[in-house]
């Protein structure tokens, strides 16, 4: 999928398959009454649209020749940075209910700043500490929002 054409063919096929899946899933939707729009109609239309457009995109891209665009995918280092960013975000989300917002925020921000700029570990700790304190004081204490406070504050 280095070029636009190859990517469009692949994505078109994926979208068409997704459309088939939505059409299939729509057949399980029940309910509705006479002269009323049955609840399955709209999802079915959307599924058909996805199938048609996905197929159209794949076929159109397959038939196209001429100047092709090279997709600016990141290099190895870039891929690694994105993956680490995503995985750390996933851990942040997963840990939020267990550790609570302030502690999970502290861990996430400290790690992220340290990872993106390794020479700045002190900055990472100071900023993440300030953010954690703000997250507790503002959102949990002052605004009274239902964020998990975590074992440190409960």
């Amino acid at each position, binding site marked *: 999928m280095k070029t636009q054409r190859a990517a469009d063919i692949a994505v078109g096929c994926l979208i068409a398959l997704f459309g088939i899946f939505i059409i299939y899933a729509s057949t399980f939707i029940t309910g509705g009454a006479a002269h009323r*729009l049955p609840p399955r109609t709209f999802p079915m239309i959307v599924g058909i649209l996805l199938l048609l457009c996905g197929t159209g995109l794949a076929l159109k891209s397959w038939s196209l020749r001429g100047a092709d665009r090279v997709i600016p995918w990141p290099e190895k280092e870039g891929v690694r940075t994105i993956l680490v960013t995503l995985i750390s975000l996933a851990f942040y989300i997963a840990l939020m209910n267990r550790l609570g917002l302030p502690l999970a925020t502290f861990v996430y921000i400290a790690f*992220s700043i340290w990872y993106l*700029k390794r020479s700045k570990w002190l900055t990472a700790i100071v900023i993440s500490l300030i953010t954690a304190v703000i997250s507790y004081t503002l959102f949990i204490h002052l605004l009274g*929002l239902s964020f998990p406070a975590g074992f440190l504050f409960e």
Partner: protein
Amino acid sequence: MGFSFDYLFQGFATALTFQNLFWALVGCFIGTLVGVLPGIGPVSGIAILLPLTTVLPPTSAIIMMAAIYYGAMYGGSTTAIVVNIPGEASSVPTALDGYEMAKQGKAGPALAISAIASFVAGTLSVIALTFFAPMLAEFAVVFGPPEYFALMFMGLSLVISLSGRALLKGVISMAIGLTAALIGQDPLTGASRLTFGTVTLNAGVEFISVIVGLFAISEVMINVEQRITAISEMNIKNWMPTWTDIRQCTGAMVRSTAVGFFLGLLPGCAPSVTTFVAYDLEKRVSKHPERFGKGAIEGVAAPEGANNATSTAGFVPLFSFGLPTAPSMAVMLGGLMMYGLQPGPMLFAQNPQFVWAVIASMYIGNVMLLILNLPLVGMWAKIVRIPFYILGPMIVFCSVVGTYSIRFQIFDVWIMLLFGVIGYFMRKLGFPVAPMVLSSVLAQMLETALGQALLMSQGSPLIFFTRPISAVFMALALLSIGRGIWSQVKAKSPEAVTEDAEY
């Protein structure tokens, strides 16, 4: 229900209360900050903060949201001028002459003229909004479900057709947005759809999660990929523009307001389009077009004016028809709905105090922004220097907090992450994001209007073509789809198919 000065004065009385003034100021400040900081745009800024405003009364909350929106439009030019990094597509024309001025040591006057042009265009557009919106709302009172369906259908078609030669990608983007919005209970019958028996999915997918993921998280991914670190060391001195500068820009400000406002009334005509049109117009009418691109001050004033005029114009169809014309307006619509307010003609009849207070607050907000932006030009330019290794995690933190606080469900945050990844790939593969955002917000209203219209006609879709207003909207929608299909068919290369999908 139409315009009356009484309503406007009442609106000013509400907007000028201490509480509303305070939240307008907070909104203006956050908005400018959102605009100035690279990596976070107005859409993600409003979407992240929207759930947090639930602690405020509706009028204060929407005043603040609106202030964030037009504040971000004021601040958006700073990175374009100071460091030649246009944070939004709409700031690209500003960078052309603004950065050239900065290189010549005139960054201060460039930033100041951008604030003044934003103020002039913003204020003139609010005056137009004051008169246009109630007039259109009066016209829209006769709208029934068929007209509403046709109007929303036309809006979506226009947005998709603006994908140009990437039409198929625009439709796919819209369809994915619709799919996300269809998950959960059917609005008419309550039947579960696409939930696969899971209880969590029964409550549906929150559009804020979708928008924050698409805009904020994917932007962070793009930035960490490019490993943007520090930005600028430029100091701003002598920010006051000369009278000659202001005189030189007066015509540009007025012309760009007209261009930005009237084009901004159309669905899909985002600031990224109108700023280029205004810049081009200014170059054409100029006696010295050769100065453009080399530091012409009108080249800064015109796109900045158009940018603000367009963003204000978006409130006209939003307030009078309940139709968002851009992703940012879709978030505003979501905000209004969150507070139980239904934008559209009845908004002026049922909640006049609210709507006029918001309009009045825009006059005040523009003055606040001028005060915040002119003397503090140097401070905003310094903020640009916050490195991304600090900014990125902060954006993620705000996104997580904003998304979680919609329903206090961790599921919404996972959805945000999922759409962040989808948004990243959409950007890389040249899929426009705007149709997905608009469709995810409009889906429920679109389906309800379709269901009600078909109920009226006992199942006949001809109802959309036999009623004059809906017939006009449907004809326009079909025309724009036809135009889009034509440009798709004409496309000869894969490169051409993607080059239009910029927004």
